[in-house]
């Protein structure tokens, strides 16, 4: 495969020779105030009524015949800049844009870039920028990236208390969550109340639900691409906040003006609030640290180093407790081979681990740790062939080290090591993806990804055989393997394609994608938790393969086209979805593979979105009508059944009203249909204990009550001028009320007997209980500052 890749690269350069008579205009688009690259900024060449967009590093390149051009650079929320350029040779032009409402000294054109959602070939994509996220009323007043993402069409979660999020009927483990390229294996703090992304350090969030370009892969449902700020390259900036749950502090600034900058952002939650029910030494808290350094070596080379470290800690005394956390590190090198050939080489490390510790002393204890550790190298080439073609080509290679359990049990001083074998794998991918503008109406994007997965590193390998579908499988010894001997390999071709066709003022878009997922998030709880285990595809567990088709219509309305509207339909067909046998035991189990079975999945739905980006009143309405189902041999009479996160209606309304310069109000309303749970129909007694029983063996046969909630918030900017002088710092007070009418939204409904003692011969009570995580209105106040 390596040879093929090289030859592709070589042919790239020869393509360039073909267009040799043309010249290119290229450079970076940045924010003038802090030097941050503007991802996706539009570059429009008036004369050809076409152009390009800046890539994730803010780099753009347009190739044109020599001549004089009027070029407009624009970005949502920023004043556009129009420049007249006499282009005779390749020219580097870095452009800095100003946010709106600052003084203007260049020609300004507004409104053009707001058409991007209609004109771009991209569909099934949701973007949120830091400014919008800041306005959304948040739980305990702390804005959060993942909680905000859940307000967008096609995105949901099982409820408060569940980690992660679900996209288009996919499970939590089917989302690839990237922080500056590095995968984050568990994106939640405190059981999903907050995410690992510190809003002070986040620049841009992009969720791709369908039509995923070929440069992304490895998960079935979605890609959440979170990009960190580079750090203010103009001046030192300190920002932070003091809230009800935690405090934040971020420092950023130039190391060398316009050359190098850094960012350090940290958060720490308070023990007192969360650990209120505890006394003594018991604590529950989290902290995280996000850092980034970048350096412009010269016009053609830039280096970025970024890292994240965070942990949640739940201790009930000095020795005993439970903790979990992620660590990621990314080193990136941007290199311009030619003006039109942008490249990036990333190397990153990511790990997620959790641990339990029980026992009073070293003679009697139980310690258990589990982790996943990965190393990835990812070369990427972005070739701006001409104004009508933009090529992405690259590869990715990941080494996985799975350590399902490192555990010791010590009883009366006797140590028993109950660790499980480490498992290793390598995942490789090569891809090519081209965006082709055929004419003003038609744009195509097509690509191909070839991925492979190799499982190795386990000595004793077993095969598993189904005795009865839906029940624990029987293991038989297969054979012994050497340490580096490949046990099983898988290969997948993943075609991707999107098309956009402009009809009148709107556009129709369609996309298809095939995705392969080689690692699986194993969890047999009702919702995702911090102790879910990542496990590789093996000789027994096949990779998940998904196909998705999507069709949508996009149109903007209103004065200045400031209301964006879209409707999208999708259908997903997934194979080898992981399910569990009855009574599956997924922890500390050497024979885990015997507990996992596979089936088919399908999900389909319609997503509506109306969004207003400008004016005093901004916000959106998003509604999803969806279905997500599984069909697994031996489960639910072999018939289709809804997944735990199948929510028929999902309505989210968000609005922000700017009352005056200093005060703004936000409201957020959520309505989600009841998710299904499995319920018994009969009860029976064994040895004084009551068990439920369902003779029909149905799965997820009962809908729990719907979830709905209203949240409000008010942001008050503190006075900017004090005693006639402008204050140096900007600060604001955020008042918020979460769950205004105190609805007890169900996390789950469970069925059980009374927990008390049973007197011989007396009947035992059984009941259904609704469990809500937040059962009351939660007010909060926080203070944010920046100077």
């Amino acid at each position, binding site marked *: 495969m390596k040879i093929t890749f090289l030859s592709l690269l070589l042919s790239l350069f020869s393509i360039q020779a073909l267009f040799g008579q043309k010249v290119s205009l290229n450079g970076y688009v940045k924010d003038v105030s802090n030097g941050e690259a503007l991802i996706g900024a539009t570059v429009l060449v008036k004369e050809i009524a076409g152009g390009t967009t800046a890539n994730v590093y803010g780099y753009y390149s347009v190739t044109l015949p020599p001549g004089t051009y009027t070029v407009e650079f624009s970005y949502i929320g920023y004043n556009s800049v129009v420049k007249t350029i006499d282009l005779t040779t390749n020219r580097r032009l870095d452009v800095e844009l100003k946010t709106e409402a600052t003084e203007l000294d260049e020609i300004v054109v507004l409104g053009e870039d707001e058409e991007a959602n209609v004109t771009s070939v991209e569909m099934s994509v949701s973007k949120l920028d830091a400014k919008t996220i800041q306005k959304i009323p948040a739980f305990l007043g702390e804005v959060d990236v993942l909680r905000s993402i859940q307000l967008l069409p096609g995105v949901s979660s099982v409820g408060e*208390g*569940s980690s992660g999020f679900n996209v288009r009927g996919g499970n939590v483990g089917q989302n690839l969550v990237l922080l500056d390229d590095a995968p984050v294996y568990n994106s939640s703090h405190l059981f999903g109340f907050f995410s690992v992304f510190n809003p002070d350090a986040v620049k841009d969030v992009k969720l791709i639900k369908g039509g995923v370009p070929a440069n992304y892969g490895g998960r079935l449902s979605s890609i959440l691409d979170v990009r960190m700020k580079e750090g203010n390259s103009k001046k030192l900036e300190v920002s932070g906040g003091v809230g009800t749950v935690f405090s934040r502090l971020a420092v950023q600034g130039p190391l060398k003006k316009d050359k190098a900058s850094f960012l350090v952002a940290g958060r720490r939650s308070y023990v007192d609030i969360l650990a*209120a029910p*505890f006394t003594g030494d*018991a604590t529950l808290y989290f902290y995280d640290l996000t850092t980034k350094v970048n350096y412009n070596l010269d016009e053609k080379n830039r280096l970025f180093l970024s890292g994240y470290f965070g942990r949640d800690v*739940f201790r009930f005394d000095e020795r005993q407790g439970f903790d979990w956390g992620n660590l990621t590190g990314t080193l990136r090198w941007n290199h311009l081979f030619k003006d039109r050939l942008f490249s990036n080489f990333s190397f990153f490390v990511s790990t997620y681990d959790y641990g*339990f510790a*029980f*026992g009073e002393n070293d003679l009697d204890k*139980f310690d258990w740790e589990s982790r996943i550790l990965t190393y990835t190298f990812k070369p990427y080439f972005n070739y701006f062939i001409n104004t009508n073609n933009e090529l992405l080509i690259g590869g990715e290679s990941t080494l996985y080290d799975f350590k399902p359990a490192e555990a010791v049990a010590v*009883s*009366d001083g006797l140590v028993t090591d*109950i660790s*499980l074998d480490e498992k290793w794998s390598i995942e490789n991918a090569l891809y090519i993806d081209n965006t082709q503008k055929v004419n003003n109406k038609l744009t195509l994007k097509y690509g191909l990804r070839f991925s492979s997965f190799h499982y190795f590193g386990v000595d004793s390998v077993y095969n598993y055989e189904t005795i009865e579908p839906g029940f624990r499988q029987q293991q038989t010894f297969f054979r012994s393997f050497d340490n580096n001997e490949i046990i099983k390999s898988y290969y997948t071709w993943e075609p991707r394609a999107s098309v956009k066709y402009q009809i009148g003022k709107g556009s129709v878009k369609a996309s298809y994608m095939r995705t392969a997922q080689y690692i699986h998030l194993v969890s047999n*709880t*009702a*919702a995702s938790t911090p*102790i879910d285990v990542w496990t590789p595809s093996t000789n027994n567990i096949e990779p998940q393969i998904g196909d998705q088709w999507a069709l949508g219509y996009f149109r903007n309305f209103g004065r200045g086209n400031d209301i964006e509207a879209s409707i999208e339909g999708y259908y997903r067909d997934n194979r080898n979805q992981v399910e569990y046998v*009855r*009574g599956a*035991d997924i*922890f*500390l189990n050497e*024979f885990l593979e015997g507990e996992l079975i596979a089936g088919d999945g399908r999900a389909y739905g319609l997503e509506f979105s109306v969004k207003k980006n400008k004016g005093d009143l901004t916000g959106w309405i998003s509604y999803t009508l969806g279905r997500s189902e599984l069909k697994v041999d031996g489960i639910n009479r072999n018939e289709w059944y809804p997944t735990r996160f199948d929510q028929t209606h999902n309505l989210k309304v968000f609005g922000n009203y700017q009352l005056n310069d200093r005060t703004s109000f936000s409201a957020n309303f959520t309505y989600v249909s009841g998710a299904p749970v499995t*319920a*018994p*129909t*009969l*009860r*029976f*007694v*064994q040895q*004084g*204990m*009551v*068990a*439920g*029983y*369902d*003779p*029909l063996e149905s799965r997820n046969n009962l809908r729990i009550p719907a979830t709905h909630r209203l949240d409000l918030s008010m942001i008050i900017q503190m006075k900017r001028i004090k005693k006639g002088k402008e204050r140096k710092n900007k600060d604001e007070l955020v008042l918020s009320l979460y769950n205004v009418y105190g609805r*007890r939204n169900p996390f789950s409904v*469970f*069925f*059980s*007997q009374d*927990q*008390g*003692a*049973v007197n011989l011969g*007396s009947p035992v009570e*059984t*009941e*259904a*209980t*609704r*469990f*809500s995580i937040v*059962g009351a209105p*939660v007010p909060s106040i926080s203070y944010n500052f920046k100077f």
Partner: protein
Amino acid sequence: MKRIAIIVLASGLLGCEDPIDVTLEEAEPVLVVDAWINNKPELQIIKLSMAQPYFDSSLPPPVSGATVVVSSSANETFIFEERNTPGDYVWDPSTSANGIGEIETEYQLQIEVNDEIYVSISQINRVPTIDSIKFTFKEELNQFQPEGYYGEFVSADPRGEGDTYWIKTFKNGIYQNRPFDLTIAYDAGFSQGGLIDGVVFIQPLQDSVNPLNEDLDEIVPYEIGDSLYVEIHSITNDAFFFLQELQIQTQRDGGFDEIFAEPFENVPSNIINADENGEDIIGYFNVAAVSGSGRKLTE
């Protein structure tokens, strides 16, 4: 371990539980057999009843007029007769020439009722003796483990994988039968895949003989004068999985533990209708060997 985790997690922050009314699907009642017998020299009872709608909390309707026979691979036959209590089929070892006992003997249960024949097979497995019962005075460790005397039983799982047990606690002569008291072991550990074999039962299992308070949020230490009696019942591997499922269903006290709760699933029965197309049946047949030891806490 789960027990400790539960008491910690149960102390939720904002969470709340309320009983709610839900309408469940309806189903035809099914015959239920509760057949957990052992080698103790006391009355052995097999109960027959009908399953009830889930929210019917009355005593289950007994099923009378059945023929209940247990026979062994050693060609012994034990006839269980319905005596004073309807639905309770009893065999009295003291009036019988033979007894349940030899390790590794296979037993077959056969029930004839309403023109249907139900059968099941179990085997009596080995059980380790309990060497001693210990009480240790401990300082307050945390909110869940207050100061006082903590009991422990000392016993070792015999070498060889695949021994499964049900550990029962009697405090002051009273069998501790709340859902959270149900303690089972796979070899010396919690589960099959744990592979803790041929050693002293792991600490959390030894500690399981210290019952929780009524709110299930604190261990109640033993006091001077209290007695502790511990029994280990050998169970088949399948019975272990049955009880493991029963634990998941019955050990529900809400709180943050619900976040980690597994969904409802039918517990797997081991009694079947001899006629594949016959009436459905649920229930379990297990023959246990039992070892026990007790001690009174004195000064």
